């Protein structure tokens, strides 16, 4: 169980994370979504006691992370798969951590096996690993102490489709057996397939959170017209915010309001329907519209 209360982190005047609160229950996978630079990693580092929050607090299994006596046995953490000593072998990296946590050496072999790193791969130095192999090693590392909570930052990065499918199953299984998973990603499809709950962050603030199905139900309306500029003006006039999507404009309003706005402005529509097919991607685009561009020019 993870509880985050009003976490804020400022670097100078700029808040990287701004008053973020959410919690993750046992038995669930929480998808932590946001564009790059939205504050996902900073939030996760604050949960794990690696970055001191400016204000607010976070607890894991009821305690601040830094007060956990042997955190590796309670929380499996994978924040950056590349953060391994390039000169150590995969097996050695795990052995050091297993010894730190006071685990049996057999756990190392068991977890390497679990993530599909064979004996040859385990003996190679991490320098020679592909990103996908590093992710697998990082996942083995997170699972090493048989924790009840997993905190994973972009674990699907660099995995091939088969690897992503495998990891999805692993996390689902972990949660179904009572584990708590917090999983960040900007790969929306990945999270949509495995998460029960979603926390969406943009520009350091939480822009949406809740049950995945409920959030997806309110996905807005897709509207398309031959004269896109006129449609935009019409929507602006009706005070409706619109975001670009692959299928047309995505509007955070129901179809009736959008149709009325178009009719008032005399714009002929080519398509008008509730969003839903695209699911999370649409939600994500709407909620973070403007945030990512703001981030890019910051």
């Amino acid at each position, binding site marked *: 169980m993870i509880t985050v209360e009003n976490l804020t982190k400022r670097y100078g005047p700029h808040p990287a994370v701004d008053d973020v609160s959410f919690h993750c229950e046992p038995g669930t996978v929480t998808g932590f979504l946001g564009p790059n630079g939205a504050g996902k*990693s900073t939030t996760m*580092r604050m949960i794990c006691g690696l970055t001191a929050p400016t204000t607010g607090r976070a607890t894991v299994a009821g305690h601040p992370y830094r007060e956990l006596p042997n955190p*590796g046995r309670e929380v499996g953490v994978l924040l950056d798969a590349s953060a391994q*000593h390039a000169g150590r072998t995969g097996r050695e990296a795990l052995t050091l951590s297993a010894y730190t946590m006071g685990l049996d050496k057999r756990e190392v072999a068991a977890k390497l096996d679990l993530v599909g790193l064979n004996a040859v791969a385990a003996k190679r130095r991490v320098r020679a690993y592909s990103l996908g192999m590093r992710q697998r090693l990082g996942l083995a590392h997170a699972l090493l102490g*048989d924790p009840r909570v997993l905190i994973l930052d972009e674990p699907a990065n660099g995995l091939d489709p088969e690897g992503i499918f495998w990891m999805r199953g692993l996390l689902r299984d972990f949660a179904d057996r009572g*584990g708590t998973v917090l999983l960040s990603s900007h790969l929306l499809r990945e999270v949509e397939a495995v998460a029960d709950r979603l926390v969406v962050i943009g520009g350091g603030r939480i822009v949406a959170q809740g049950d995945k199905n409920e959030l997806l139900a309110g996905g807005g309306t897709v509207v398309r017209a031959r004269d896109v500029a006129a449609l935009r003006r019409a929507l602006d006039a009706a005070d409706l915010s619109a975001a670009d999507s692959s299928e047309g404009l995505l509007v955070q309003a129901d179809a009736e309001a959008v149709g009325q706005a178009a009719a008032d402005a005399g714009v002929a529509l080519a398509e008008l329907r509730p969003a839903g097919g695209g699911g999370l991607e649409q939600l994500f685009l709407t909620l973070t519209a403007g945030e990512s561009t703001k981030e890019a020019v910051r």
Partner: protein
Amino acid sequence: MTITTAPAAGAVAPRQHTPVRRPSLLRLTAVELRKLVDTRAGRWLLITIGLVTAAIVTLQLIYARDADQTFLNFFVPSLLPVSVLLPVLGILSITSEWSQRTALTTYALVPRRERVVAAKLIAVSLTALASVLTSLAVAAVGTSVASASGGAGTWQLDGSLIVNAAILQVTSVLMGAAFGLLLLNPPLAIVGYLLLPTIWGVLGEMVRPLRGPAGWLDTSRTMEPLFSSDALTGEQWGRIVVSLLAWMVLPLAAGLFRTLRREVS
């Protein structure tokens, strides 16, 4: 016929386990010792330290006068190059966590960072003590060879010299570690460690008003008496303590402060 069943793929259950205890300092020290040798770079640094010791004894066997081929004369000269290399070990032990970004793993597993730092300091100090034993062993081999090949082969050595040597090597490695802790960047710490005392030494020689303070602050001068087996005077100890306060204790304290607060990413 035996049928082997494939293990259930991907089954990971969050297990309930007995209350977990925090890792002991002994365990953390063992981990840090292992980190010193489990990479090629670390292993070679240690091997180099051993080889340098052996090379110095060998050179003396070849070039030193027979009468000078004593245990004492084999032992003392091997201390200096080792005392230059040990700080590099101290620096790398601390800074590689940041340069290789393993700090993310290390401090996630042991969030009480001061315990990791303590374990590292103990680990490198033990290595420094081991280097003294290596110097003694290599000197002993040299002495045996010398007595067989017509050298003096005298075994006399004061216990106080061994204590002095241990102090010299342990403080050397800790000074390096302190610089590493303060600067948290391998090249910067190595250059800083090698350069600053040298600059200070040169200035102490050149600038007359600095000559007095240099006698108290230049470690290459204050530590010199440790190379002899004469008992040190109170003032000599005083100079050692003062110079170590400046070059070891101060950067250690400031470095610890910095390491505890630094954001790990």
